[in-house]
């Protein structure tokens, strides 16, 4: 009796997603009901919702990966529309900025930081990720195309995943972390010390990758091209610790595989099926972490049975809804952003750790390296949206992307660090204070101060472009006083310098 309605519901959702975005408000309400249950149980009062400026700043960074441009801040603060928050979420999800940030996130997840990976061309993958997220391709399909694609990178960009890995164990580790939310790597050499993963379970999962190898073509005058296929003779390497175990789904069936049959589609099919207990949970946990600063399970890539969720029912609810909606990523994001849990005001000083863990208020997060880069670029562009080149066709494009990636690597001090903890060190801070990038402040001011603004007006413009809000009265008084007192040409630049170096600029709050 329960089966039929479930199947019916799934097909309905699939049809609906073709027509119009499904309504995410009911899921947002369910999220809040789960959060409230726990707040009530521990008798912790929920904090108030954030104001419009705070919301806009937050949702821009989380969805579009950059602080809002000045004109957007003004427009949003002036708007009297009751549903303006829901509207801006939709607007940002439909913008190329959303697709770009998702491509940044997934690129980091899929490409290892190794010298060997750095020598390969990542561009086909990055462009394809961007197009996939722009089209809101279901994540199940995206995953299948990454794991089970075959051919050259240029035709099948998903195969880049194998091109950038050297060995079967590297692939197995990454697939378990990213798509299963599990740390299996220790089981490569021995049974896991703290969890119950067995060495044979690891190599049974790794068995699915035993046929995959890389393809290589040298085209005269055009360069070298790579790809991956299960019929390639240059297989991924196997470490000496490898065991010969027949492929088996993790804690699941041992599929019957013919020797000449490709293994990867079988693995990808199991992985992305709605019944897989790991896939949906891993993806919703990672997404929740991106928006709220913590996972429902922490660390987010260690979702073993021995590491319980803070809100188990919420995790199950999100995972179930995600699978039922056909892994519609935008639907999940819309629901999270519409929830009160997401829209609460940041916790004030003196708030307890517990209040943060229960989502009674929002936690302050550090910007990601890409967010920091793109936000600085926008401010130095006079607070105006700056469209980045989306291709690498000419030298200027290559230089731009090269320096953007270089900046991100420099600020990515510790891979997988919590966004709630400050990790920048002296080198990063020196770069924000003294680098040649920052010497462009003088040029930016020509933009901000083109009309020769009065001190109060200029101070307001600079605060709006950097902190996405109007200056507070006492603040405006101080900043105006500073500009009125210091009439030299450097004074406005010093103010912008201070704003760009402030904690408020560097954080999502």
């Amino acid at each position: 009796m329960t089966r039929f309605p479930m199947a019916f519901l799934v097909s309905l959702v699939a049809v609906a997603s073709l027509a119009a975005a499904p309504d995410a408000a009911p899921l947002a309400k369910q999220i809040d009901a789960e959060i409230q249950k726990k707040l009530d149980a521990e008798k912790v009062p929920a904090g108030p919702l954030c104001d419009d400026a705070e919301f806009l700043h937050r949702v821009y960074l989380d969805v579009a990966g950059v602080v809002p441009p000045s004109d957007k801040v003004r427009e949003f603060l002036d708007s009297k529309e009751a549903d303006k928050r829901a509207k801006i979420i939709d607007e940002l999800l439909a913008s190329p900025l959303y697709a770009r940030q998702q491509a940044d996130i997934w690129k980091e997840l899929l490409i290892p930081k190794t010298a060997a990976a750095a020598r390969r061309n990542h561009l086909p993958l990055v462009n394809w990720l961007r197009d996939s997220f722009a089209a809101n391709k279901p994540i199940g399909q995206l995953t299948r195309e990454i794991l089970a694609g075959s051919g050259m990178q240029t035709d099948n960009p998903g195969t880049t995943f194998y091109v950038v890995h050297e060995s079967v164990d590297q692939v197995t580790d990454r697939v378990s972390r990213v798509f299963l939310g599990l740390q299996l790597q220790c089981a490569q050499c021995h049974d896991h010390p703290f969890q119950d993963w067995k060495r044979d379970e690891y190599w049974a999962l790794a068995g699915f990758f035993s046929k995959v190898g890389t393809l290589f073509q040298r085209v005269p005058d055009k360069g070298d091209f790579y790809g991956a296929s299960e019929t390639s003779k240059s297989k991924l390497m196997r470490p000496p610790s490898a065991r010969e175990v027949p492929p088996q789904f993790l804690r699941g069936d041992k599929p019957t595989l013919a020797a000449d049959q490709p293994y990867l589609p079988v693995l990808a099919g199991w992985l992305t099926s709605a019944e897989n207990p790991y896939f949906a949970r891993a993806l919703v946990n990672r997404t929740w972490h991106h928006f709220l600063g913590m996972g429902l399970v922490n660390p987010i890539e260690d979702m073993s049975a021995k590491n319980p969720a803070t809100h188990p029912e919420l995790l199950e609810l999100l995972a179930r809804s995600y699978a039922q909606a056909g892994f519609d990523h935008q639907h999940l994001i819309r629901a999270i952003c519409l929830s009160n849990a997401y829209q609460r005001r940041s916790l004030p000083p003196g708030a307890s750790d517990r209040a943060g863990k229960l989502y009674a208020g929002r936690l302050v997060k550090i910007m990601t390296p890409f967010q920091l880069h793109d936000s600085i670029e926008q401010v130095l562009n006079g607070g105006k949206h700056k469209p980045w080149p989306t291709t690498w066709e000419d030298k200027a494009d290559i230089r731009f992307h090269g320096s953007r990636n270089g900046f991100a690597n420099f600020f990515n001090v510790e891979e997988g660090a919590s966004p709630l903890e400050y990790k920048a060190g002296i080198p990063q801070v020196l770069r924000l204070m003294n680098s040649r990038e920052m010497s462009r402040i003088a040029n930016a001011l020509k933009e901000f101060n083109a009309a020769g603004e009065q001190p109060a007006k200029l101070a307001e413009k600079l605060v709006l472009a950097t902190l996405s809000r109007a200056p507070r009265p006492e603040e405006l008084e101080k900043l105006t006083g500073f500009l009125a007192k210091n009439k030299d040409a450097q004074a406005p630049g010093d103010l912008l310098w201070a704003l760009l170096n402030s904690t408020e600029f560097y954080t999502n709050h």
Partner: protein
Amino acid sequence: MISRRDWLRTTALGLGGASLSGWLPRLAAQAAQQQSKAKSCILLWMDGGPPHTDTFDLKPEEPDCGIFKPIDTAVPGIQISELYPQFAKMMKEAAVLRGMSTVENEHLRARVHLRTGYRDGQGGVHYPSIGSVVSRERGDLESPLPNYVAIAQSDRSHGPGYFGAVYQPLFVNDPEKGVENLKTLAPTAQQDRRFGLLDNLEQGFKERYASTIQGDHATVYRRAVGLMRTEKTKAFELDSESARTRDAYGRNKFGQGCLLARRLVEAEVPFVEVSLGGWDTHFENNDAIRKLSAQCDPAMSALVDDLKQRGLLDSTLVVWMGEFGRTPKFKGKGRDHYAKAWSTVLMGAGIKGGQTVGQTDKIGATVVERPISVADFMATICRLMQIDYTKEYDAPGGRPVPLVQKGGRAMPEILR
């Protein structure tokens, strides 16, 4: 009923059942403080795990264990690999620990294990790395130079763990470039004006938000400005060394990193790590080890020699180690990870040099004499650095955690 936390507190004070054994290392550690004069520690980190049977624990009787030949050293009876001819001459200064026996076989976990002395995730605590421990115990927070410099690719295992951001290392990517962006075009008066504005903004943030981020941000800025304004950053300028000295260390990143380490130690930086990566030789071992050793031998030898010439060797502990060893027998052309039996080297700090500690079996696969656990190893480094390794700090949640996990004992063989 006694709560878990009270129980931990009680035993920590020596009132529980473990009182006697709790006292012994504490007294011993205090005695040691009068012996060692070490002020600084240089960690030469061989990232990836160097093969003990190709470097400091050769098995010439077993042709399967490696192709490199043993050579005599300055100490009769001690032989090391032919790949370390310069270092062989310095054996009087070194203790080769051939009894290392640890429990983590995977890189990230083993890096955490060897840099912190604990197992990753043990008790749900993020432990501080040895660099953070030394910088906290022996460094000066007000010093304009950082207390912990890592000439290395950053990794979680370098981190300060529950000690917090103040004890994180200053990473230097390229020793030739030193600390980048140290100079500013803005005159001091203009800088001060900027900091005045920044202060105002920070105050506003602090009044509105609950977060440790603002405090950490302010601390890092304060230290960065201190660094911008001190003459002591001349320590980072390798150009002031003679071409001869620079050649002696080797004109490569690791060699110049070791030279920079010496300069930083002269400037009283308490902890410097210099990393040499590429030891993870699963697929091809011999050529890689030859190339790496050709950088490692001159650099570490020049470093020890130079420290000695300058009268700094007695006050500087030099540690050579990776995260584990490698399988004594080949698997194809490579060697796999191996934690059960492997070698590290200690030099300087007034240790008893010219000796080996511990012994492995005929093929280097198990430790047959004097196994050295990670806790003993860490305790030894702490004691040589005059740090009381039984000292406890409160980890998040108020749980007291000793610097070195219970059971660790400094190795008496090493101390004079």
